[in-house]
């Protein structure tokens, strides 16, 4: 019934999602949830926005170049909502640069709603949420131009980034912006680590929503993620032992290939 090659994946995912739902349900009932370890990049958001406010320069935000199918873009929306509310609260300029045309109306709505929530709907500047180009490097060139012209004091890059990541990071450094970057694309993490002040690696960008809002329900979902990781580690250890001791009778590998 289940498609060939996906049986194990189906059951593992089902169990993982069930665990997350159970923990979300427990959190809703008010049961205690553990605290999350400190993520310097997320803690630095307020510092970055505060720096921009003091210097009278805008915050530059990029939700990455991934489209709506990309979970990193969805994670970026949560962070954008928080950043936009903070910028609205302190009357700090916020420039949002979009590459994907489908993402642009969503980010515009997020920023607009943030200003409305803070009671400052008239302070929202539609021209500050911009669509540049669907072409990767045309988008990169446009962002470089914006950074050189607008001189942001903070550059927040959260989402799916590819080859243009180092361009953003270096130019941000050139204009003197404090940089907080985060992506789950493993091939770009080294560039962000080298060139940015703070870097969120991999799953930390998905934790942003829970971390910044301190919502117990979202924190419960984070614990589910940790359980999933513990199961993965256990499978890796068992698999490594089996592959070493009895490579021909590796039942775990056989089961996972189903």
């Amino acid at each position, binding site marked *: 019934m289940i*498609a*060939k*090659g996906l049986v194990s994946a189906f059951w593992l995912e089902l169990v993982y999602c069930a665990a997350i739902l159970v923990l979300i349900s427990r959190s809703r009932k008010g049961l205690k949830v553990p605290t999350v370890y400190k993520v310097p990049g997320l803690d630095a958001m307020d510092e970055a926005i505060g720096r921009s406010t003091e210097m009278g320069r805008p915050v530059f935000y990029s939700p990455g170049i*991934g489209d709506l*199918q990309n979970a990193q873009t969805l994670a970026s929306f949560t962070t954008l909502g928080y950043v936009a509310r903070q910028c609205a609260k302190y009357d700090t300029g916020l420039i949002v640069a979009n590459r994907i045309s489908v993402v642009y109306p969503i980010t515009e709505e997020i920023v607009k709603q943030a200003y409305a929530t803070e009671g400052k709907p008239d302070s929202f500047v539609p021209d500050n949420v911009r669509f540049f180009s669907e072409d*990767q*490097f045309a988008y990169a060139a446009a962002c470089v131009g914006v950074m050189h012209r607008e001189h942001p004091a903070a550059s927040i890059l959260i989402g*799916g980034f*590819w*080859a243009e990541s180092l361009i953003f990071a270096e130019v941000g450094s*050139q204009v003197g912006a404090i940089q907080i970057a985060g992506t789950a694309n*493993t*091939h*770009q993490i080294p560039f962000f680590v080298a060139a940015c002040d703070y870097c969120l690696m991999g799953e930390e960008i998905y934790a942003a929503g829970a971390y910044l809002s301190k919502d117990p329900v979202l924190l419960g979902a984070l614990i589910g993620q940790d359980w999933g990781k513990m199961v993965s580690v256990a499978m890796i250890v068992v698999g490594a032992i089996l592959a070493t001791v009895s490579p021909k009778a590796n039942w775990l590998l056989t089961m996972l290939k189903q």
Partner: protein
Amino acid sequence: MGFWEKAQQVDRRIIYTLMIITLAVAMIKPVGLAISVNKETQMAYDAIEKLPAGSIVWLGCDFSAGGMPELIPTLQSVMIQGFRKNLRFVAGGMWNMAGNMAEVAWTAVQPMFPGKKYGVDFVNVGYKAGGNVLLEKMVSDAHTAFVGVDHYGKPLKDLPLMNEFKSFKDIKFIFGFFTGTPGERDYIKFVGGPLGVPIASSCVAVSVPETMPFVQSGQLVGLVGGMRGAAEYEVLVKVPGRATAGMDAQAFAHLLIIAFIVIGNLGYVFTKGKSGKTT
């Protein structure tokens, strides 16, 4: 400011100028350093060598102009190797420059094989919209996925090779050329896994670390990484080209970067000792 303080704060324009000079000199006057072949590149080459004559190979040209220096040489080398063995190629992809990239390679390689004809030995279906949805459709009906025409607007039914290529089930091998997403993971997920078609990948150097696990797990049968891999493939097919020429430039550029890193660290160490502070 002392010498070692200055060494930590070299103006980036000096770095850029020296980099331009290094690359230009190395490309104009190549030294011709020897190139050894990596295991993963050899695996990709051997996989193509094992294919019987007449096999149809899909060339997934999923890259843009930025990847040309690293991937076009491999694409051309694969086509040279394949045409020597009378393999047939269908090229296309999910990226909007797929057709252009395939055309660049065909234009360069075809004069070396005057007997090879477009439509019989090679077809360029170009870019088709849909991302990985295109791959899903190609698994069952490639002609519908390609909207019935090739990159130049010619009906696929008029191309003899396409009468034998109805879906990915008719393909014996996939050689993908990737600079990002969609990329090899989509081929592995939608084609390699379900159909068992062997896949080799040529990717830009920055993607090699994240692609290596797929080679180790056997989901990719070979990996040609970056310009180094392209140069290795040129060595294997014995047709040195742009990748081989570019290796000298890359080598000296790396040396320049290392030199600046060393200078910066020496400046850091000597000034740290003097002031007792970290910078």
